[in-house]
């Protein structure tokens, strides 16, 4: 089981790197766009869409990594107040709910992807990017997030990690 959990963790970390690179690419392209538009007085074709889709990609692909490092902001009042088994139960509930949501979003995202692929949808700009490319990020990111939460449930159930990442001494 350790090797399963470990490989999921590596997968999520890889997601984090991909998302960070997408954001870096977005910064570079925004600046290039500013130079073209305001200094060379030319019009831009693909930059606006590229930047927007990079960030959507970063959001969905980065989400499993942010889940891994518990970066999705939450209200920890009750978990901190409750200790022991109640906290564990809450932790399991939250991980299971997040898992369920990820599955639903991955599934509906896959439906959207399939529609765009079959219908040959493209963006309505001169660039005419095939829409399945940006849509791909949603099912992939959410499926990986489902895996991350599956690993989290396993870790909680076997005592490998503490619910909400809270150490016992904060009780």
């Amino acid at each position: 089981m350790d090797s399963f959990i470990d490989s999921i963790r590596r997968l999520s970390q890889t997601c984090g790197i991909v998302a960070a690179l997408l954001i870096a690419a977005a910064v570079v392209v925004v600046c290039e766009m500013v130079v073209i538009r305001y200094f060379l007085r030319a019009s831009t074709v693909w930059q606006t869409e590229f930047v927007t889709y990079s960030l959507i990609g970063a959001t969905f692909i980065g989400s499993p990594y942010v889940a891994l490092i518990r970066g999705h902001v939450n209200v920890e009042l009750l978990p901190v107040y409750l200790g022991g088994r109640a906290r564990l139960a809450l932790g399991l509930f939250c991980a299971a709910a997040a898992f369920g949501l990820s599955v639903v979003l991955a599934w509906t995202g896959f439906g959207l992807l399939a529609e765009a692929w079959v219908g040959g949808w493209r963006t309505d700009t001169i660039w005419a990017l095939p829409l399945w490319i940006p849509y791909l990020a949603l099912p992939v990111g959410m499926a990986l997030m489902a895996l991350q939460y599956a690993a989290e449930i396993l870790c909680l159930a076997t005592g490998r990690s503490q619910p909400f990442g809270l150490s016992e001494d904060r009780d």
Partner: protein
Amino acid sequence: MSALAIGGIVGIVTLALLATGIPVAFGLALVSIGFLLYFEGTSSLSILAETFFGSLNDFTLVSIPMFILMGAAVASSPAGKDLYAALDRWLHRVPGGLIISNLGACAVFAALSGSSPATCAAIGKMGIPEMRQRGYPAGLATGAIAAGGTLGILIPPSITMIVYGVATETSIGRLFIAGLVPGLMLTALFMAWSLYIAWRKGYSLLDRATTYTLRDRLVILPKVLPFLAIIAGILYVLYGGLATPSEAAGVGALFCILLVAVIYRIRDLHTISQILRDSMRESVMILMIIGASALFSYMLSSLFVTQSVAGWIAGLDVNRWVVMAMINVFLLVAGFFLPPVAVILMTAPILLPIVEQAGFDPYWFAVVFTINMEIGLITPPVGLNLYVINGISPDVSLPTILKGALPFMLCMVLGIVLLCLIPGIATWLPTLLMGPAL
């Protein structure tokens, strides 16, 4: 069941679910999906992916990761320390110069970083020990920095304001300009209170022990002025309508990274990847909440909750200031428990029609909204800034910090009252620079 009753149940279920400690984004999405499934059946699931994706498919949102990156780059450098040192060297002859330097540095750093906790950490690390060393009580020193840090979400450029702009479809450039004067007003109120306390309790307002030569004062300027130029540049570009917020933010981020690399020689791959990773984490967290809250507001409006709440409030036939007072109390309580971004995204689409119907300016309301959120940052149980300050000065207890922050909280309430009495504090500058709001 009436739409109003459904609205009440949605509210209770949402709060109960968020209380379990589930990430805010997922809680909102789950509530939305649950209610849509219950009232509209499985066919409603088909719009999920498109709504989620569509809500993020907006070039304006690009400004969020860009401003976060700008702040992360500045926060990774000792710029906060230098900012404080520069103000201290220039102002230490002024009575109470130390307090003015600290709060002033908070205001400027807040503008640069757009983040409250980052401001507290950057200025507090240096400022709190310095103030205590000169005899100021721990409560005043820590409270002032905790409050000064909250300015980050009001003084432009502010992520919170961008999120408000996205949620309410208002002009981000105008929101930024609207936050400027109230931000300076709050800074001045914080300073006035600190100086009053220091004077009344007889703490020495003048530091005669240290002297700085003109050379000392000049030598630090090249480190600080470029950052100030970036803020000024961004505001100039935005209010002049020369570029979109996303473009201004992208160029600002690149400049800040370059400045940090040139001035502070932060060039190693490890630090740069750290900056990128931190910005990615913060952006993903916010953008996921934005996506989920799009589902949430879609659910609310397709179940007619949004419309009936607005209709109900309009039908109450009470004075508009009573409505505003109720909204303020509601926001204040919400801010005690939830992060500002979540409160704005969840409530702004419902509140804005009510506020506009009552004849209030949406940009003025953005400022009042944000100050309410600032109060939440220094009040328990979630008050993020209190914990950051506790982290950097572990020998000061949380209750002491809280007691120190309390008067500043009242300053913010006073700020809201002043804004209600003189709405021009928020609306004058945007009207002067950009013409009347449409």
